């Protein structure tokens, strides 16, 4: 166990402080631990991706937009996807109820109307 290298898995520079709460500044580690791995993915790239992911999440989920630990971003992303799935489910249910009572031409008209909106 223990080698802890499966976290985001890619970075050959992946060392102690990547993605940790305590220290997101990885420049000191990066130069020291640069290995000649086949993947050129840097810690910076990963943390850039994480912050882009953070920007996608709704404001309410993260207090402000300052540095949030990656573990938190991952957690909120999972939770957000889960809630989006639930919304799709609820809307599917609503649509299936509407479909039961209306005919297809109504549905088609509604869809066309949505297209024009």
């Amino acid at each position, binding site marked *: 166990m223990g080698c*802890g290298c499966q976290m985001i898995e*890619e970075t050959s520079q992946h060392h102690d402080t990547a993605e*940790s709460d*305590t220290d997101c500044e990885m420049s000191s580690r990066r130069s020291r631990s640069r290995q000649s791995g086949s993947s050129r993915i840097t810690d910076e790239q990963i943390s850039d991706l994480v912050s882009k992911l953070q920007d996608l999440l709704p404001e309410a989920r993260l207090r402000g937009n300052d540095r949030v630990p990656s573990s938190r971003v991952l957690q909120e992303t999972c939770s957000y*996807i889960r809630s*989006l799935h639930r919304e799709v489910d609820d809307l599917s249910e609503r649509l*299936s109820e509407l479909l039961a009572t209306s005919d297809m031409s109504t549905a*088609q008209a509604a869809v066309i109307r949505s297209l024009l909106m």
Partner: protein
Amino acid sequence: MRGPTAKSFKQGFLRSFLVSLKSCRNGDMSLQERKRAVRSSADAAMATARGGGAMWPQALLASSSSSPPTSSSWPRLLPTAAKVKTTRCKSTARRCCRPKRSSSEMIARRLVRKRTKILRGMVPGGELLDGVSLLREAMDYVVHLRAQVAVLRRVSNAMHHMAGAVAPRVQLKGETAQLSDGNQG
């Protein structure tokens, strides 16, 4: 996703969705069955409209057609991910026993590991992706999920309004109401 990309995705989605919705109007279906049919139509339409720029559409379509994705479907990805893991493990094995590692760091990393694993389960095809690709896929997937929700909401509002609009007018004219079962919730 903004501007023309968003619009063309939404339109493509609507088009595909409408086509597969036609098969959902089978009157013999229970509400649950119809709901599942609508849901999978929506997912299939989302995946089709997204096209080839990401991995999740393929995975989504594969799972809805109920054929499980085999490793032969993604030959490129699977060996790479496995290879990366093994190589990493061997080369850093010796450093694992360093006493310098603080427990807060270990906890943080364990959390990230655990949550990455959960995220893999939430993104279609995520299990076969390496970490960086997973992050990119998750972003793409979230953006398109949001669009899916927005479109579905518009469609159901439009249908709801149409259902509501028809009945009162018919009643006012004194004709037999077609949708008079009060189903305008």
